[in-house]
């Protein structure tokens, strides 16, 4: 279940850049997502986009 994770975590960091930088400093495998609020943070629009995604 989690064996592969515990053997070698390979991380996708979404949010605080600082956490990605710390992971890189530790020699970890990490990529960063330059996250922005989807649909400009408009919750209604976000729901609509999510629905479209599922189609």
């Amino acid at each position, binding site marked *: 279940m989690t064996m592969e994770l515990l053997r070698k975590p390979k991380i996708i960091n979404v949010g605080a*850049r*600082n956490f990605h930088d710390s992971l890189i400093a530790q020699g970890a495998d990490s990529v960063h997502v330059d996250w922005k609020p989807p649909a400009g943070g408009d919750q209604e629009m976000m729901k609509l986009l999510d629905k479209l995604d599922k189609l």
Partner: protein
Amino acid sequence: MAVKSLVLKNEYRDSIFLMRISKKLEELEGVQKASAIMATDANKDLLRDAGMLTDEVKGASSNDLVIVIDAASSERAVEAISGAEGILAEEAMKRVEEAEVIYKTLDSAIGAEPESNLVLISVPGEFAAREAERALRGGKHVMIFSDGVSEEDEIRLKRLGKEKGLLVMGPDCGTAIINGIGLGFANVVKRGPVGVVAASGTGAQEVTSLISAGPGISHAIGTGGRDLHDEVGGIAMLMGLQSLADDPGTEIIVLISKPPSPEVAKRILKAASEVGKPTVVNFLGGDPKIIEKINLIPAVTLEDAAAKAIALQRGEKPKRVTFSADLNEVKNTAEKEYKRIGPNQRYIRGIYSGGTFCSEAMLIVRDLVGDVYSNAPLKPKLKLKDSNKSKEHTFVDMGEDEFTAEIGKPHPMIYHELRQKRILQDASDPETMVILLDVVLGYGAHEDPAGALAPTLREAKKIAEREGRYLPVVASVCGTPQDPQNLTAQEKKLKDAGVVVMPSNAQAARMAALIATKGEAWNKMVG
């Protein structure tokens, strides 16, 4: 006084990064206040309250990054604004130079990085569940650092994860260590055979740091504070426990949490007793008898949990630690402090950055000095009416939302200004007898917390001295010599400022109680 602003359309930066910019700008000459924030409605309200809401910022949207400077003169404000532009440009340049691949969305990252197995999420709470669900649907384990996720979402995500065999650590999971890699707020620990599952981030930090001086840590899996609520049912703790049971590198297990609901406690303890590896359980403030009954090892404090895990690994009989230094030395240190206290100084003031440290210290101290008031009290009747004012023995958890919601004032493990103010406030109170603190090191924490606090602590002692009092300060530093801040160097900075530095939060609380009772608590503690 002049207020100037700059609006950067459709620019998003995370709050920790923005706080660092704000802080750098506030250090510039002539700058009273600087705010680099996203122009959300809530942030605009805060700017209005601070008298910093310019017309330009009023018109900005939540998608825009704004920089607002309140400076002594218009020239200074303009200088600071261009300083901010410089910092942002420099950061963008660094990314280009490093030729780093940066993804725009989680979906694109999952698509391009099929080997990835864990998504670390620290976006604002209202968006975190959405990203976590995408990660789980993409087949990835998840750590949600963000708080502000509803319990309903937590249950839904954890059930989805369980169905897919994926671990959901959090929401509000501050700390994890996976095969030596620290995620979120984590210390640099020695690799070894002890595995930890913890519902508290600072709890995990204290236990892993202390065990690092002994046999070392295999993994520390976080669950988030609500995992052991009835409604969530301990899904993450049970999965974490199973992971450590299956992990050949883990020989001893430590479980850390506040007391769970009886139903969840039963389920967890039963699962733990079936693992077949020695397991130490610390349900902070809970009843140790139910743990003992099924042949697991109860621990009363975080340090006690670490000490018992270390003893088990060495094949020794676990014993309780009250003070780890020579007892005469401890007694002398306390005496030196309390001999100088005046008759009107009566109360301990605990000023904490870690919520679990605050709770643990209250549990220890209440048996020795009596009731402790708090913004996060052990009993409802001990809740402070005004969290900003101490009453009798008061321990405040400055990581609570009420303190961190102010603009540009993130967690006290990163930013010390609010704690510094509180220290000086309590130092001015003639009834304050001892100030008690935690200092947390590791990745994610402030780069030099002792260096930031030491001048304030010196000032606090001077304030008391000017009014004819002596003010003892007791602290413990949670961390390791391998941390970027270096435990030994941090402890020295505090000692040089006249602080009594103890090797654990539990021992610091006992030392404070010893000073506050002028030694009377000794027999109760040591017997």
